């Protein structure tokens, strides 16, 4: 008879646990071992992800795969493992300390319903580092960091994850006879499962608070907390749901290829700036100039500046066009500056300061342009046959400036504007812009 056909009698190593006499961690780990054996899992099919603290020593007493990470972050490693290998059984062993430190991870794992099992060895204090209070320390408890009694309300772990999507949450104690069955139930639940297992820290919490097995039960009662399987949610497990969703998706990366279809010789670098308002399609107007430059066989670069609020305030786009590759993308002195709105004018000061008679400013009529050394062309939007909406003015004025200066060949600009999904509308605006009255 082959030995390999027998179920694993244990997934424990031969080493004894290192825990203090009376500590509840050992019995909980024994229950975990029983659960793994009952489920007939082989060591290589299980990854135990341990946190920091006394519970963080746990993985070394199992023959399974193991990951011993940072304090409070074990859920994140477990999530990464489960995401890539949904077939593995991933069990997190953490204390109440790590649960508090990694609270955001706990919530997110529950909300995602990632298919890991979290075993919280909850002994109400940071037992490895001196018994400091944790997020689960009951009010009034004495710890080195709450010498006059804890003022903070203890975290209800099960309710917190339970109302936030966790598939399975259970509260019990290290003394429960059915603990291994409940752990097995958690592991076999399809989704995020948590077992909040209360136990005794004989080194600190028991000593500091005259705490006992009986008081675990009375504390639960006092806090109005129940034990047993408390919450269940039926929702797709994340790693599986992600793969299902991915099936319908297409590769997203798109490369814009622009052929130099109308090459024009360019001798020196040219700088173009359009300064307007957010929501005024300033960037897309400037993009047409950039693309027209590429169509002409030039290199181009475009830098956009706008406030973080995106839809309010200024929007300024700088375009550089060059016969050679552009390594430096700054613009100090534009050859052409188009000022569309007051928001844009507010950002035009440095350009206007640097510009001289070699440059031209196209400014919308009615804007109060400060004195500048540049040539100034006032563009009158009201001269159009129909009113130009503010969101279209940038493109109309850019068309006007390109038409008058030839900074980029107007043919290329027009051809660029006319291509793409907004081609027809863009062309209309280019035509309107070209004929705007200037002075």
């Amino acid at each position: 008879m082959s030995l390999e056909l027998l179920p694993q009698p244990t997934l424990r190593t031969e080493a004894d646990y290192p825990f203090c006499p009376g500590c509840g961690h050992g019995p909980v780990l024994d229950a975990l071992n029983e659960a793994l054996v009952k489920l007939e899992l082989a060591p290589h099919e299980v990854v135990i992800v341990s946190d920091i603290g006394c519970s963080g020593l746990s993985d070394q007493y199992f023959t399974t795969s193991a990951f011993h990470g940072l304090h409070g972050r074990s859920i994140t490693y477990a999530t990464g493992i489960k995401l890539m290998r949904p077939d593995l059984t991933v069990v997190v062993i953490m204390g109440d300390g790590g649960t508090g430190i990694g609270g955001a991870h706990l919530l997110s794992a529950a909300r995602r319903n990632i298919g890991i099992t979290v075993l919280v060895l909850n002994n109400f204090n940071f037992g490895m580092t001196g018994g400091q209070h944790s997020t689960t320390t009951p009010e009034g408890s004495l710890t080195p960091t709450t010498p006059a009694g804890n003022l903070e309300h203890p975290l209800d772990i099960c309710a917190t994850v339970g109302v936030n999507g966790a598939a399975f949450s259970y509260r019990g104690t290290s003394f429960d006879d059915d603990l291994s069955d409940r752990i097995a139930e958690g592991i076999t639940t399809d989704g995020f499962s948590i077992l909040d297992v209360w136990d005794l820290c004989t080194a600190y919490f028991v000593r500091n608070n005259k705490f006992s097995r009986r008081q675990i039960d009375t504390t639960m009662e006092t806090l109005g907390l129940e034990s047993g399987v408390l919450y269940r949610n039926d929702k797709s497990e994340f790693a599986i749901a992600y793969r299902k969703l991915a099936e319908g998706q297409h590769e997203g990366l798109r490369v814009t290829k622009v052929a130099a279809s109308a090459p024009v010789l360019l001798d020196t670098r040219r700088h173009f700036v359009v300064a307007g308002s957010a929501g005024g399609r300033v960037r897309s107007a400037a993009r047409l100039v950039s693309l027209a430059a590429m169509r002409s066989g030039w290199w181009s670069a475009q830098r956009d500046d706008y406030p973080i609020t995106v839809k309010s305030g200024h929007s300024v786009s700088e375009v550089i066009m060059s016969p050679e590759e552009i390594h430096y993308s700054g613009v100090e002195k534009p050859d052409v500056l188009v000022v569309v709105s007051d928001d844009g004018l507010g950002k035009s000061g440095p350009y206007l300061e640097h510009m001289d008679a070699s440059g031209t400013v196209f400014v919308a009529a009615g804007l109060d342009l400060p004195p500048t050394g540049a040539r100034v062309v006032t563009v009158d939007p009201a001269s159009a046959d129909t009113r130009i909406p503010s969101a279209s003015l940038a493109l109309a004025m850019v068309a006007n400036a390109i038409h008058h200066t030839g900074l980029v060949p107007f043919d290329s600009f027009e051809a660029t504007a006319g291509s793409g999904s907004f081609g027809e509308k863009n062309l209309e605006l280019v035509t309107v812009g070209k004929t705007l009255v200037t002075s």
Partner: protein
Amino acid sequence: MMMLRDLPARGGIGMQGEDEIASIGMCIGAAMTGARVMTASAGPGISLYSENIGMAIMGEVPLVIVDVQRLGPSTGAATTTAQGDVQFVRWGTAGGFPVIAICPSSVAECYTLTMKAFDLAERFRCPVFLMADKELALTMRSVDPADYARVEVRDRDIVDPADKNPPPEYRFDPPDEVVPMQLYGGSHPVRFTGSTHTEEAFITKKPSIVGALNDHLVSKISDHVDEIAMVEADIDDEAETLLISYGVTSGSMREAVAAARGEGTKVSSLTIKTLWPVPEANIMTAALGVSRVVVAELNPGLYMREIERVLPHVEILSIARTDGVLISPDQLHEVII
């Protein structure tokens, strides 16, 4: 965000973690199953990666971290460019152990050096930083497809998952050697720990083992700088001045050098693409014969201290800018002549 869209269709996974700590944590866990992993943020997020960077060093996890640098300190200025993290990424986790940091100086290099970063991560089983900046990331540029050469990314060197009697997870001797990785999900259990450990990945504090482990973490990189060092040297043997820069500022340097040479001025330049480990031999070679070195960077002069260390007998001038504005070719031109 493009990758979040792109990866699922290619069989990968793209996630937004609840915070940067979760993102890097998920990456490390996923790497232990064999995945190539990358996480990206800016300086404030790199701060949150800090502890896990140390753990990836300790556990020898291949991991690519993209730092699109922005102006600091603290939240600094959103979408404002800077190069202020060049020392931070090297020293940003407890213990002082080495990482690799490489720095693209053009959009095309963001492509090629990302592949290089993955390759180095596999070769050395450590975190590799890709140091971009806001200007490179958010300025649209036309590019030449010819610059987008494919860089070979080696497969992960792993212990056969079917091996029922595998070697220990780690090996510290010879100290500079990197051994094949063992992954979760094969036919044997695999251990990992972020604490000082034996070769079997059990926690230990035994000085002889801890010393060997930590020597290994240093030597595997410091003994192989020649495999990691990347620079772009543009040398004029008669130049008296050598400009040194990296990243987006190298772009300005290239233009300043071209302009100076157009006027008949002799000048050399060095773009540093591997920031860590410092490519000391390449820097010394580039500086042969020059009397003056100018280091240009968008921070308070952070990498200049490495140059001073490597070139103790050369006059070094720092062009450092921290106002969110690029160093212009004109600004560099002034110091060349």
